[in-house]
């Protein structure tokens, strides 16, 4: 029997991700910034993944799309929701996962997973930047630091100070006031990450938080946020390698199942 080669594509608000599987083994990943033309961005991500996998587009047996822009995906045979894709990818990585927290550029999601590995409930924030990556990006800009450096600063903080503003626009003014008041940047960074973690935790509480907890999405790369989340949840979340690709991985796994 020939092992099927399948792909999952996740068209997010900020980036497009592609994962290519041979059977159940990942042989290629590609990522591209979501531009004005989503189809073009998708092709770019595909090209990168195909190159890594050392195959051609025509070698793909089946493609499944997910993400907010999934209807725009070229060459997709079918589509699944982000929640379904996240759950699939999470369980594949670790069958003990019961809660998935997925924080992207413009959306935050909490997903409850049954012991059978199915998504049974979810909560979502798509209306407000206060629960998404765009919030920390805006604050890093206010402090005029690269995002990575801004995130790492939080780990050096010795004092937790509260942020009053929830809205990213108001928070930016508050951060500027804190800078003027000579508040150490470490503490400002910690305050920003505590604030976004608080928002996420109250959202995920709506579905219930049960161990093990998997954190995925681009924001999982932010060590300052992970630290605040762990403190707020009083547990250690699991951060996989390539956290931003889990949705695409889930879609590729669904493609593989459908191929069988």
């Amino acid at each position, binding site marked *: 029997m020939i092992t099927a080669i399948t792909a999952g594509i996740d068209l997010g*608000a900020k980036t497009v991700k592609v994962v290519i599987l041979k059977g159940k083994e990942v042989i290629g990943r590609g990522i591209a910034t979501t531009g*004005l033309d989503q189809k073009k961005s998708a092709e770019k991500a595909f090209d990168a993944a195909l190159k890594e996998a050392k195959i051609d587009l025509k070698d793909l047996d089946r493609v499944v799309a997910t993400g907010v822009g999934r209807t725009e995906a070229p060459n997709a045979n079918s589509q699944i929701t982000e929640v379904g894709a996240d759950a699939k990818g999470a369980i594949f990585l670790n069958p003990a996962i019961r809660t998935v927290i997925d924080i992207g550029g*413009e959306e935050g999601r909490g997903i409850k997973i049954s012991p059978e590995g199915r998504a049974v409930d979810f909560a979502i924030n798509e*209306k*407000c*930047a206060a629960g998404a990556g*765009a*919030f920390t990006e*805006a604050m890093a800009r206010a402090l005029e630091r690269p995002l990575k450096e801004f995130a790492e600063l939080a780990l050096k903080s010795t004092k937790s100070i509260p942020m009053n503003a*929830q*809205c*990213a*626009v*108001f928070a930016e*003014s508050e951060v500027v*006031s804190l800078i*003027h008041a000579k508040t150490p940047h470490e503490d400002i960074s910690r305050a920003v990450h505590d604030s976004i973690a608080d928002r996420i935790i109250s959202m995920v509480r709506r579905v219930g938080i049960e161990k093990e907890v998997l954190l995925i999405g681009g924001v999982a790369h932010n060590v300052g946020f992970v630290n605040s989340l762990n403190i707020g949840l009083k547990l250690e979340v699991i951060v996989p390698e390539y956290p931003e690709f889990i949705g695409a991985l889930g879609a590729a796994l669904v493609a593989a199942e459908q191929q069988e």
Partner: protein
Amino acid sequence: MAEEEKKEYWRWLESRWTSPDIDWKKGKVISAGVDVGSVSTQAVIMVDGQLYAFANMRTGSDSPNSAQNAFNRALEDTNGLTEKDVHYCVGTGYGRVNVPMAQKAITEIACHARGANFMYGPTVRTVLDMGGQDCKAIRIDEKGKVESFLMNDKCAAGTGRGMEVFSDLLTISINDVGQMSMEVEEEPEPVSSTCVIFAKTEATGLLRAGWPKNKVLAAYCRAMAGRVNELLQRVGVVKDFAITGGIAKNIGVVSRVEKLLDMKALPPKYDTQLAGAVGAALFAKGLYEKIKK
């Protein structure tokens, strides 16, 4: 090489005024109201319940200073009137506890209601106040007393700050954005994001897709109107209707709110940003008369 100065498109115009028809020396009660908002501060001086002088200035980083600055500015060019001549002063707004010359602080909701009643007349029943960092829908009676209100102070959508972000993004002065948004051949769909941060990303995309700036502004003004309309519907809109605050000067938002409500807002007789301070000065007059009795 000289460094090019970064233009501040959000910068709105400050103002001050003295009534040419009133001689304060003939007045019995001289009262003052100071409204320290998150973005702007107003000081109003009234003589026997008539508007005598005002100043409207940007709030600095320090509330007591901002209050004092606006108060001093209102007293300029007032024929020798000084702080000592003012019988009673009430502070209001976000920084109301930090008004050094005030004997009392009153919430901005009560002051806005009272001020709108004075500024637009006793027929006003619904007041929409669109300020720098919040937005309020207030139902009032014929005396300017609050019957009910709803407020959004959690989110920049529907506030002056949100509009400032857009004027900066499009590099168009905040004083012109409303008029510019009216100069479209066809009204575009509103931007779909409520959040200002997301709306900014959306607008950047529209610009890249070749939309002219006025069309993007029209789409944003329409979204903002839709957002405040939700607040108005929840509190219930009863005629007459009036808009106060800085955004009341933005024809792009005002005309679109009117369209959604199918109702015209009463035309303003005074600077729309004054409502809170006017209400405070009216309360100050009443309080002074009470203690004098």
